[in-house]
């Protein structure tokens, strides 16, 4: 079946602009996660959704970052007033529920802020 998909695969923007990154989880997966990965580092947790609600947003670095999942499926990560330090690969993962269920990752969106 289809895995987690993310669009766009690459996004180049200018400092100060607004960007939206989209994640389509595996159908039926109730849990959705966003991570950010900088070069040479492991992924870093940003936010977790269970259904439509953000159950844990403790990883969001500041209030320029926001994510939604209005219908409990597709999620959008929104970044306002982008900064060069926001450049990274943004990864989305989904799992069927909480607990130790496997998280399935998408290929990521590479964001470059010029």
């Amino acid at each position, binding site marked *: 079946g289809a895995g987690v998909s993310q669009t766009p695969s690459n996004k180049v923007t200018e400092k100060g602009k607004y960007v939206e990154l989209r994640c389509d989880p595996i159908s039926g997966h109730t*849990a959705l996660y966003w991570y950010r990965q900088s070069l*040479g580092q*492991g992924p870093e947790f940003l936010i977790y959704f269970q259904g439509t609600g953000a159950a844990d947003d403790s990883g969001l670095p500041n209030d320029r970052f926001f994510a939604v999942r209005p219908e409990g499926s597709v999620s959008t990560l929104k970044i306002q007033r982008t900064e060069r330090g926001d450049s990274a690969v943004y*990864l989305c993962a989904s799992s069927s529920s*909480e*607990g130790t269920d496997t998280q399935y990752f998408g*290929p990521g969106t590479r964001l470059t802020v010029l």
Partner: protein
Amino acid sequence: LAKTTQPISMDSYEGQEVNITCSHNNIATNDYITWYQQFPSQGPRFIIQGYKTKVTNEVASLFIPADRKSSTLSLPRVSLSDTAVYYCLVVPNYGGATNKLIFGTGTLLAVQP
């Protein structure tokens, strides 16, 4: 969440068995040990998960001693396509947990011909 320590890099040759050891001295009773693999330009991919003793699947084996303070991922007869970064994670299993994954820097395994 338990912190993990693993080698930064390892080298191997095709056909060899590779063992990557991870230490997690502060692992809690409810924690599971999970390994992910990541190729360049891809998201991490689940390899194997275990709680104690030995777990084996079609890809790898995971050995966990009785004290659970370390674990060893064993990849049999590696090939060039096994060149990747391997992450060891400790994942809590209790109701209501976020179960966000805490990644370290992983082990870069380079397989040579």
